[in-house]
């Protein structure tokens, strides 16, 4: 199992140096994805999901971001120590990301076909093929068809502003598909779309990675969708993972107080009712609480929770939880 990891983040710390001071955002992230595995990543807004996945591709803006410690392995190679050239190769042919906001991720002043074309060109270059304009065109049409866009030719000649939100989302999926041979990172795909279209997009994404055997990291607020799509789920809170388990286990038997609160806040999954929200707020990263960062909001908090952050405890098959409540087992 260990050697088959495509992503292995160990104890990652990331700060942001901003005007107000230093925000200590990632606080010892441990996160793994096996080859071919489909992993979900859930957690409240601002808990550091996007920061975690961006660091995998080393595309965090530095500064303001600064890696304070930890290691990131991608297919066994240390991303933080990779040469610029190797990083480039990795981005061109093995890993890619669907950004959270597809409208912002598309360049507004270039045609869609032009933007996809460049990605194809450098992907092929990395694979050792010099590719002609016609072949680029052909491949662009093909990848647009894969994301079920009607009339690819017309679409290629459009600027992003001429397209609907759903179309832009599909375009950014198409772009990511070109170079996501081994790993696809999808950051809240479809969040800004209405529920039916979001559903379609997620299902499409699921089918695409299924067909290709690509690993996927799916960040989503749509817990229902996550449930149906991924093998394993990580729950993140204020800069670190608090629980990880197979999807079934996590939803049937959530252990961490935060996970329980999160599920309770989402009524659809547990069967009706009004969302209660989780009492309290995510901590201020300028001066986060010591120990377990959830302790100020946790009804089970003990003195030790305020002193040291709990390690991951193994509880059952592949179920891990970072909470002292389970330390004795």
């Amino acid at each position, binding site marked *: 199992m260990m050697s088959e990891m495509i992503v292995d983040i160990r104890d990652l710390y990331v700060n942001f140096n901003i005007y107000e001071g230093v925000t200590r955002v990632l606080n010892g992230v441990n996160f793994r994805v096996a080859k071919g595995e489909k992993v979900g990543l859930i957690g409240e807004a601002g808990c550091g999901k996007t920061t975690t996945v961006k660091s995998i591709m080393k595309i965090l803006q530095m500064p303001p971001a600064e890696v304070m410690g930890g290691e990131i392995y991608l297919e066994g190679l240390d991303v933080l120590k990779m040469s610029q050239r190797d990083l480039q190769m990795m981005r061109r042919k093995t890993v890619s990301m669907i*950004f959270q906001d597809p409208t912002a991720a598309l360049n507004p002043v270039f045609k869609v076909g032009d933007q996809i074309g460049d990605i194809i060109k450098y992907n092929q270059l990395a694979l050792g093929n010099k590719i002609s304009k016609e072949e680029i065109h052909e491949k662009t049409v093909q990848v647009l068809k894969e994301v079920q866009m009607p009339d690819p030719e017309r679409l290629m000649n459009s600027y992003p502003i001429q397209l609907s939100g759903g179309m832009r989302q599909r375009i950014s999926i198409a772009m990511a598909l070109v170079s996501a041979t081994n790993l696809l990172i999808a950051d809240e795909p479809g969040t800004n779309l209405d529920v039916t279209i979001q559903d379609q997009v997620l299902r499409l994404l699921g089918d695409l990675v299924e067909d290709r055997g690509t690993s996927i990291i799916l960040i989503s607020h749509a817990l229902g969708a996550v449930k149906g799509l991924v093998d394993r789920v990580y729950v993140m809170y204020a800069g670190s993972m608090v629980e990880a388990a197979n999807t079934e286990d996590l939803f049937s038997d959530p252990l961490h107080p935060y996970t329980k609160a999160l599920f309770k806040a989402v009524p659809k999954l547990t069967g009706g009712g009004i969302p209660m929200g989780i009492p309290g707020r995510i901590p201020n990263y300028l001066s986060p609480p010591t120990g377990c960062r959830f302790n100020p909001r946790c009804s089970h908090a003990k003195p030790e929770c305020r002193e040291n952050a709990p390690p991951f405890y193994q509880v059952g098959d592949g179920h891990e939880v970072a909470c002292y409540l389970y330390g004795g087992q």
Partner: protein
Amino acid sequence: MNIKKYVAYRLISSFFVLFGLSLLIFSLSRLVPGDPARLALGPMAPQWAVDKLRAQLHLDEPVYIQYIYWVTNVFRGDLGQSLVTRRGVFNDIFEFFPATFELVIFSVILSTSLAIILGVTSGKYANSLWDNIVRVTSYVGIAIPSFVWAIMSVFIFGYLLRWFPTLGRLSSGVVMPTKVTGLLLVDSLIAGRLGVFRDAFYHMILPGTSLVISRLAQEARITRASVVENLHKDYIMAARSFGIPERTITLKYLLKPSLIPTVAIMGMDIAGSMGGSFIVETIFNWPGLGRYGMSAMLSNDINAIVGVVMLIGVFFAFMNILVDLITAYLDPRIMMKLRGG
């Protein structure tokens, strides 16, 4: 609305703007105190001669009647007679325009390319030593008006260092190439006289740089600001995440959106250079429209003043339309608006 319709619409509205401008400048030129006829003929001229010229110029009639005479003639291609050169203002403009146009084009090419290079490199490496040098220099550049640059450069590069000539378009003794376009750089090449080309080029350097240095600084600053803004956009990070080479990102994906605000002010700057050339041409004794306009003002040569101002107005209107078209080409969002509205 398609682009052709849009241009037609803009041309028509420019026509009204120019009409307004002509009313304004015409009235001003007639209301300014001082008798143009007396000035033209000199203090020694007999009164009857002055009166005759006044009558010839319709100066005794109400301003609106004078204007009607003037407008009627304009549509016949006649801007009236210059009181100084005693030739048609239209002919004068035709003769002096190429020198100014050449200077403006030269300085526009210079400032545009430098502004983009400086703005992009300093924006891309924001807060580096290079960026700070560019920023401080451009503050200085903006703060100092062009006539000060002109005088300083005459002194330093012309007088102390003797690198560049400071007067006119050609050295004395150099024979003008046969007039084809009126642009010496072009005409000398057509005539195959490289020595003249070189001489003309050298003569353009000091007036050309004085004319644009503060605009160049302003354009560089605006380009820098928009590069810095776009540098952190998601689409740049996305391009990077797909392994697009940094060069392509800068020269393609970053450059094009960043040029939009620059182009908007560049158009105004080009048109403004025409006006700016008044003082610079006078300092460098450049035989262009600016010097012509300047001497017209000093001698109250009313027809020449109105003619030159109107030409600059036409130039502004034209640049305005051109800028809007280039902006629409660069920015599909604006193109949509043109098409849609």
